[in-house]
């Protein structure tokens, strides 16, 4: 294991790769700081760029944006009470009160340090789990893959925020969009309304439309309160006292464990992990009344949780090739577009890519810790840029990026269509993220399901007679049962409340 990790390090420490790793985490942190631009938007924006890079560097770049944004997200939360990413919503609860009582520097340091420890724990678990997971994954046949994808899609729609049935409908809609184009097995054209659609809908168009254009439409004409902070941080109030530091050990450890666990599960991710860690910390605390008023453990636990989760999220993505959430789906999509099929063969066939990416997380977290506090003045400056000055440039970057990908005007028009769709969906309480997950996983599901039926002569019992597949089926049944149970009990509760 150590040998492989060292192999990975040797890949990352090549100067060109290191530059991309730095660029990725830097950009991620910047994106996380800017409210209104999320990691998923940034990754969709950079998708076309990755076609000019090799697979390893594009993975390192895109992954860096993702976990880098987890660091950056806490900065806007602490200083302005504006969560830059969904997972830093709880960071506002403790971080902003700290900033208001002139302890912003301390809050930023604790957030950065907890993020670092959480990230490192996540990387360690990823390294430990990679080989065993791959050994299990190599036993996976078509039925296991089909069931795993179904479990992942169900989990993504059941556990997330908002209505479960709506999320599930969006997953299915994503699968439908993934069907457009030539059928992979027979070459039969499906839903090809225009000749340009023969190759299918481009992931770039879908992601940039749903997450880039729709967000710009939503935010362009919205006023944002210009309360950019004027703060002077001296190094003296940044470092916690010995007593404070001691009170943070257990919360960071608990947060990292919760984060690592929820990150590796399909469907849950950094946002849920941070909420769970905060709730858990409050329950464990001997002084729960301090929460919400700038309590350091309440800041440290969720910060370490979301960063641990953003690292362990790569376990299913890298070993099974099955992404757990929309960001991972984009990263898998980028790999596929680069001609690499993620899955258990990845570690065997391309160890330098596999371990290089993992080692880049290790290096990236160190870079993030080092640049976080010294660059705080720059981040504060960035928070003063009004969104009105930013979005026209993003519009042009989306247009040029989509167009240059396949030199296709159709792709630009599709991006616009998905942008309007994504905007309307959000307004009508439909989440766009499951669409992307369904789009990426749909072809995988269809392929493996059809192959299973072919191999086992149309016999459905194969899904429950093979042990791993049976476990996955049980998981899916449990999720559906849980969803029905919780919606029924919710209705009972609301009925009781109204009568």
């Amino acid at each position, binding site marked *: 294991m150590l040998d492989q990790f060292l192999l990975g390090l040797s890949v990352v420490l090549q100067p060109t790769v290191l530059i991309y790793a730095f660029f990725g985490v830097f950009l991620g942190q910047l994106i996380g700081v800017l409210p209104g631009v999320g990691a998923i938007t940034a990754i969709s924006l950079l998708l076309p760029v990755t076609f*000019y890079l090799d697979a390893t560097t594009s993975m390192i770049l895109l992954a860096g944006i993702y976990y880098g944004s987890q660091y950056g997200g806490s900065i806007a939360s602490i200083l302005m009470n504006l969560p830059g990413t969904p997972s830093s919503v709880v960071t506002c609860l403790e971080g902003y009160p700290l900033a208001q009582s002139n302890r912003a520097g301390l809050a930023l340091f604790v957030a950065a340090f907890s993020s670092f420890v959480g990230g490192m724990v996540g990387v360690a678990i990823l390294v430990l789990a990679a080989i065993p997971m791959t050994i299990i994954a190599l036993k996976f046949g078509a039925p296991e893959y089909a069931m795993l994808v179904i479990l992942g899609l169900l989990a993504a729609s059941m556990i997330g925020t908002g*209505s479960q*049935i*709506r999320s*599930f*409908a969006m997953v*299915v*809609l994503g*699968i*439908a969009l993934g*069907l457009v184009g030539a*059928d992979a*097995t*027979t070459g*039969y054209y*499906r*839903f090809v309304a225009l000749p340009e659609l023969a190759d299918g809908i481009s992931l770039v168009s879908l992601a940039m439309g749903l997450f880039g*254009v729709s967000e*710009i*439409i*939503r*935010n*362009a*004409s*919205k006023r944002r309160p210009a309360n950019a902070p004027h703060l002077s941080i001296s190094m003296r109030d940044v470092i916690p006292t010995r007593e404070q530091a001691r009170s943070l050990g257990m919360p960071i450890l608990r947060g990292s464990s919760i984060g690592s666990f929820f990150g590796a599960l399909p469907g849950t991710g950094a946002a849920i992990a941070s909420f769970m860690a905060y709730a858990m910390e409050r329950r464990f605390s001997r002084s729960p009344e301090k929460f919400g008023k700038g309590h350091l453990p309440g800041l440290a636990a969720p910060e370490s949780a979301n960063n641990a989760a953003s690292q362990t999220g790569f376990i299913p993505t890298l070993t099974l090739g099955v992404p757990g959430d929309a960001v991972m789906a984009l990263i898998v999509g980028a790999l596929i577009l680069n001609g690499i099929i993620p899955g258990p063969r990845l570690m065997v066939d391309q160890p330098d890519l596999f371990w290089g990416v993992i080692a880049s997380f290790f290096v990236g977290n160190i870079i993030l810790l080092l640049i976080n506090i010294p660059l705080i003045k720059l981040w504060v400056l960035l928070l003063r840029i009004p969104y*009105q*000055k930013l*979005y*026209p*440039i993003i*519009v*042009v970057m*989306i*247009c*040029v990026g989509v*167009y*240059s990908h396949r*030199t296709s*005007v159709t792709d*630009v*028009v599709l*991006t*616009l269509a998905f*942008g*309007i769709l994504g*905007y309307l969906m*959000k*307004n*009508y*309480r*439909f989440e766009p993220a499951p669409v992307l997950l369904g789009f990426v996983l749909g072809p995988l599901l*269809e392929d493996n*399901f*059809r192959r299973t*039926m*072919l191999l*086992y*002569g*149309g016999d459905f019992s194969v899904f429950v007679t093979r042990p791993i597949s049976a476990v996955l089926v049980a998981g899916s049944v449990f999720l559906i049962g849980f969803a029905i149970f919780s919606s029924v009990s919710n209705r009972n509760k609301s009925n009781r409340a109204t009568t």
Partner: protein
Amino acid sequence: MAEFDDQTDQSTVNRLVRGGVLLIAGLVMLFFAWGYPTGTINQMGPGFIPQTVGVLISVLAVAIIVIDLRNPEQEDVGQMHWRGLIFISAAIAIFAILVDVAGLVPSMFLAVAVSICADDDARPIPTLIYASIATLFGWLLFLVALGLPIPAFWR
């Protein structure tokens, strides 16, 4: 009370729209997928999954309509930003129409200028200055630095 009834009628239609559009999408899908060869269960044709997905979407859409109609007290539809919607859409559409005909520089300039108009406070002179600077940087980034194979101007 009369006022309330009127509002309820309108919001019923509103609530129908959400699942309704999805139902139409499912039915349109089924309409096209119906002609695709289905094959047999152990030798599935390309039509099997599309038909299944079409049925699933339609069923889910009906379920969403029923749920939306039964729960009248759900939060309202998010506020529409017409100005943003119109100008951002126009900016991208202009880019799509012009880029093949007029080249990258004019289409970038117009895309920036039109998208700035989505902001309520946009004023003509700053818009033109901003669009010119953004186009200059775009030209430097995309054509000089990255060397994208897109013509800068019309030929």
